[in-house]
């Protein structure tokens, strides 16, 4: 028995053309729940910018030690949703977040939660590499320093070295730790920024299109790094490159016009998505 994996999804408009009957296919493997324990749980999250709604009742479970990709066309709300997870929307005047977002079971929007501490647990990497205009050492050391995580100079040095090693940058910069971080290439800067983020030992790393400003080789290096990082951290990555989402993630969520359309295992989304809109988007049939 062979199964025909190329059959069209349910609900094809206009009806299938007349022809030999399609061999009865076994039931499509629907995406089951997320792999592993849930790290971040979002329930009915909506975001408003100056009264205009950007995100509509998004509910999503994000598992730990996995890479979850958020895909969708421009303006679909994926970056907005990403920023709710470290409360960066708080810094935008006129932004309002309603709904419940829990990390390890505790609501991060509760009054008792200090966003400064939250952002030590949830790190962020941005689209354009933005190292501080300080030395490489100072860049990586900044987080541990302001959060008081390293108490002596030698401790700080070992934290910096460990972070740079884990970000795959140590060999390239070990001899010039005190040269400016802005003197590195784009790919190196992005890895420096990742090292800076992991220096505070976060639990979650949020990445907002981290490779869109990089060339293919630098992108491949970052993707390999993400592969290595997911053994320690929960990673959520927003990307407008579906190919990248397919390569890098284990779970994928598709957003459209502020709504979460479909979420599931990456393999299932990219071989046989349930929703018509998802299929249209990933095959390039979108208007």
């Amino acid at each position, binding site marked *: 028995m*062979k199964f025909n*994996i190329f059959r069209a999804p349910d609900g094809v408009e206009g009806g299938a053309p007349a022809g030999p009957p399609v061999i009865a296919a076994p039931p499509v493997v629907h995406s089951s729940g997320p792999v592993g324990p849930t790290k971040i749980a979002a329930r009915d999250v909506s975001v408003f910018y100056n009264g205009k709604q950007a995100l509509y009742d998004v509910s999503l479970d994000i598992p730990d030690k996995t890479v979850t990709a958020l895909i969708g066309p421009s303006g679909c709300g994926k970056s907005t949703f990403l920023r709710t997870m470290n409360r960066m929307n708080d810094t935008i005047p006129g932004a309002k977040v309603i709904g419940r977002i829990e990390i390890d079971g505790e609501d991060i929007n509760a009054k008792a939660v200090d966003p400064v501490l939250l952002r030590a647990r949830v790190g962020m990497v941005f689209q354009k590499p933005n190292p501080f205009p300080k030395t490489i050492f100072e860049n990586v050391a900044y987080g541990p320093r302001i959060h008081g995580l390293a108490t002596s100079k030698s401790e700080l040095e070992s934290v910096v070295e460990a972070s740079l090693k884990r970000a795959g940058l140590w060999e390239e910069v070990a001899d010039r730790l005190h040269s400016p971080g802005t003197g590195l290439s784009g790919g190196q800067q992005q890895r420096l920024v990742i090292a800076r983020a992991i220096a505070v030992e976060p639990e979650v790393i949020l990445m907002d299109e981290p490779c869109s400003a990089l060339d293919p080789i630098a992108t491949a290096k970052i993707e390999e790094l993400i*592969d290595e990082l997911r053994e320690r951290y929960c990673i959520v990555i927003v990307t407008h490159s579906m190919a990248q989402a397919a*390569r890098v993630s284990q779970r994928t969520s598709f957003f459209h016009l502020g709504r979460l359309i479909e979420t599931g295992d990456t393999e299932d989304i990219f071989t046989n998505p349930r929703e018509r809109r998802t299929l249209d988007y990933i095959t390039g049939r979108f208007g």
Partner: protein
Amino acid sequence: MNQHTVKAYGDELNQLTAEVARMGGLAEAQVADAVDSVARRDVALARAVVDRDTKLDAMHRDIERKAIRLIALRQPVASDLRRALASMKLAVDLERTGDLAKNIAKRGLILAEGEPMPPLTRSIERMGKLVSMRLRDVLDAYAAAEIDGAIAVWSTDDEVDEHYNALFRELLTYMMGDPRTITAGTHLLFMAKNLERIGDHATNIAETIYYEITGQEFTGERPRWNPDPTLEPTDDTDPTPDPTKPA
């Protein structure tokens, strides 16, 4: 060649190739055992071959799923794409080879209940050994990723045809001589046909390996041994040059 920057990608490709190689080993064993069971009238071995066929089917499905996943998620190009596609095609050929071996074993079970026919079973055995060897050679070429072995196998497809036609005539003569042997002879005929088909699959595999490694399609007329034009007409209209024939 350098490693893939994303190690998991390289690992997945290697895993796929390894699985195909494993499937090939199993298919090879199935053919050899099936022929053996016929020659020695070994019922237990024949039954074992029949039972093991489900494993081959499972491996085929698995390889196909893995290859689809690789193509969907990694977007391979060039040599990586050919590798993925080749593994799918090889899995099909090997699965069919397994089915044919199972068929031989089944027929062997039936033959074992009747009288032994040494000269004929010996011919089957000889043909079977040739086919088995060719299959092994082509799978070795796949594992080693070198085209010379593949080309060698491709060029000797006519030997199998030679054996087949000889067996065909031998069986016809036998059956025409003694009508009581028609049942057994027919089974043997089908076995011979199966072996010839296995030979063709080995040639298919050789062509696929050539494409995977060089990126070019294997053009050329498959060599066919044909002493009697009335039995199997050949088609000599393909003008593309045959890489194995001297210019």
